[in-house]
């Protein structure tokens, strides 16, 4: 064999309060040689019943700690991922990991390795719920990690699609890195085809665009995509969008104090395709208070703003980076790391215009 062969096996089970249990066990063999790239799904796989039981047990335990109104938004995943590389010899292991992950309302409640507190429930941040009408629009806004990831992802998609070039824009202190690493093991494969470490590519450094021609390129990395999202073998990569990056890590070199009472954007999803200017978002909010409470706002609310304007109003990180998810309806869930960001905006600045 003159090329490289990578075998990746993913077993996972997902338990959610609002939908039936689902599980998957997939193995793909990806071979690169002078003729191109070949993917095969040929080995028989068994149902991961142990993972199914683990996910269901963790769901029940975690749901008990959630306000009742939020329980149908909870999902827990239990999984195992293994990768090995073969190049002129016996296969050598590249990476193996068992994990548990929970999410609710677009917020990653945690991702931990198997054995690392397996039986313990995830700790949700919310202490109760609140009606949208009860939130003071004058409250300052903080973006939670998933909201930061989704916002940066959309802003990059708009710019990457050349709808609007923002080469000169500044986002105070913010660095965005395209990386093959991920806090979510199924999307983690920080290796090149030959097993060497896959380098990170800065997209935005300290608020300024990197040289995108040099660092990012126009192409997706097929090896990374196929190994971390095996279903992509069955459809063109980046088919419907200008999606030309791997995972995102967001950092902020500045810090900012977090006010006692704030409106937290837990997560949000844009409601239109990539375009410049103000666009509508569907947002999950919560409100913190001086007593340490964090009340989830139900239902989700409509917001309307220019993503780049919001990024330009970042004051600094309000805490350490944490796992986050961007729930993209076309490309699927993309995981990354981001800190919560404190902004100089109020909720009223983001409010959708009233219909006449």
């Amino acid at each position: 064999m003159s090329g490289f062969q990578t075998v990746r096996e993913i077993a996972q089970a997902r338990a959610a309060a609002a939908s039936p249990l689902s599980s998957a066990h997939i193995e793909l063999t990806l071979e690169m040689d002078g003729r191109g790239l070949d993917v095969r799904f040929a080995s028989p796989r068994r149902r991961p019943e142990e993972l199914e039981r683990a996910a269901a047990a963790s769901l029940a335990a975690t749901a008990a700690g959630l306000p009742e109104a939020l329980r149908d938004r909870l999902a827990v995943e239990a999984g195992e991922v293994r990768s090995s590389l073969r190049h002129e010899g016996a296969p050598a292991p590249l990476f193996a990991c068992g994990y548990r992950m929970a999410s609710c309302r677009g917020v990653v409640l945690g991702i931990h390795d198997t054995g690392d507190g397996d039986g313990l429930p995830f700790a949700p941040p919310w202490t109760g719920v609140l009606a949208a009408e009860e939130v003071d629009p004058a409250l300052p806004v903080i973006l939670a990690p998933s909201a930061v990831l989704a916002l940066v992802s959309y802003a990059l998609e708009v710019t990457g699609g050349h709808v609007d070039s923002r080469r000169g824009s500044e986002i105070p202190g913010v660095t965005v890195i395209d990386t093959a690493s991920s806090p979510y093991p199924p999307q983690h494969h920080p290796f090149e085809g030959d097993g060497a470490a896959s380098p990170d590519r800065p997209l935005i450094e300290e608020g300024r665009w990197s040289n995108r021609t040099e660092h990012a390129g126009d192409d997706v990395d097929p090896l990374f995509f196929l190994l971390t999202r095996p279903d992509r073998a069955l459809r063109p990569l980046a088919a419907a969008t200008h999606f030309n990056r791997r995972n995102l890590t967001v950092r902020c070199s500045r810090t900012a104090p977090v006010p006692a009472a704030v409106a937290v954007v837990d997560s949000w999803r844009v409601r239109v395709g990539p375009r410049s200017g103000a666009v509508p978002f569907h947002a999950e909010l919560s409100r913190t208070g001086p007593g340490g409470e964090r009340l989830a706002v139900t239902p989700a609310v409509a917001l309307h703003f220019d993503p780049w304007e919001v990024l330009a109003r970042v004051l600094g990180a309000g805490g350490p980076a944490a796992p986050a998810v961007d729930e993209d309806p076309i490309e699927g869930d993309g995981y990354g790391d981001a800190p919560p960001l404190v902004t100089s905006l109020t909720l009223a600045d983001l409010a959708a215009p009233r219909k006449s």
Partner: protein
Amino acid sequence: MDGRGEIRRLERSRLLYVTVDSTRPSEAEVRTCSFEGGRAVGEDGSSFVFSGPPPASWGVRLPKPAATAEVAEARRAVQRLVGSWNGRTRVQYLIKSSVRIVLGDGLHGVEAAAGVWALLGNAVTPSGRIVPVGQSGRGSGVAELERETAEGDFARLLDRVNRSQPLPGGATPAVLAPPAAGVLIHEAIGHFAEAAPEGRVDLSHRLGFRIAAEIFALDDDPRAAGGSAHYAVDDDGVLVRGATAVARDGRMLQFLHSAASARAMGVEPTGNARAASVWNPPIPRMSNLLCAPGIAGEAEMLDRMGDGLYLHSLAYGYGFGFRLEAQVRLAEEVRGGRRTGRYFSGGVIDEDRVVLTRAAELGDAAVYNRNAMCGKDGQLLYDVGTRAPAIRMHELRTLA
């Protein structure tokens, strides 16, 4: 899940991807994939997806699908087409041949073979305009690529976009050529007619709703002659019994159903359960959406419009809730009922789902759209046909 009452879906597929960059036309990248896998869904709705052959206890294994095109032949066809375009282009050609079967109590267990193709990517004209490339359909597509090379429709579109001005936003009368009309009809009416997956949301209030002007009558037919979709059994294993009347006199008449959505609404399935792959749950999707033509010639429509826009081509149609948008690939100014040769590109149609209630008349010839790609719930199909006539609109809203 012990197998009783279980629905088992199996698929074997072969896929070929050829990527061609006009700056390195002789270095086409080739990617192949051989897939075997399945999905089992229990009576309680729990599901398990797997790769590889099914468990031996299932007692069934699908044959390997036949190849529908030679790699070298497909590569040459893509390279010739890209070579006929002006500017920089990077396109991905896909061909997928597959065999599927659905097994379960009361199902027919019919093996269904299918072949689809797609060509997608971007072209950048010499003046720097970016033009989405999108064609797809049934079969290998090699004949369609060669026809496109010979006829040069997309090459002409690129030349016109290259000479175009940015589209000014605003509300204006418009005539949509059949390919552009097809995008609007697909988004505004077709997706509106798809029942909610699993019947999770009761959409029955939509029946009788005025979704378009009275001149519209639409059917969905998985076996329509010339349509991109062509199947006798859907991905729920339901046999297709004929066309579904979707809308009459501009009002919604029937939903397009999967087995689950039909059960939830207490009606018969319509043969519209479709899944991008066996790993995806089948959901209600269009097959071939057919809009009945009107009686007006295109020249008459332009004449009656007087001043406005002629929309040659749209891309990236997208609906979210009651909103609808599509990118304008190419538009042309119309003055005094005549096309002026002054072209516009870029900009977005930004409309409500009921945009077609502002339609004034339909053209006398309905034409299949050459792009049959449709994404929904993360599932991309390449064979969703739309046959539409030109449409004259009293008003169409665009954003610059």
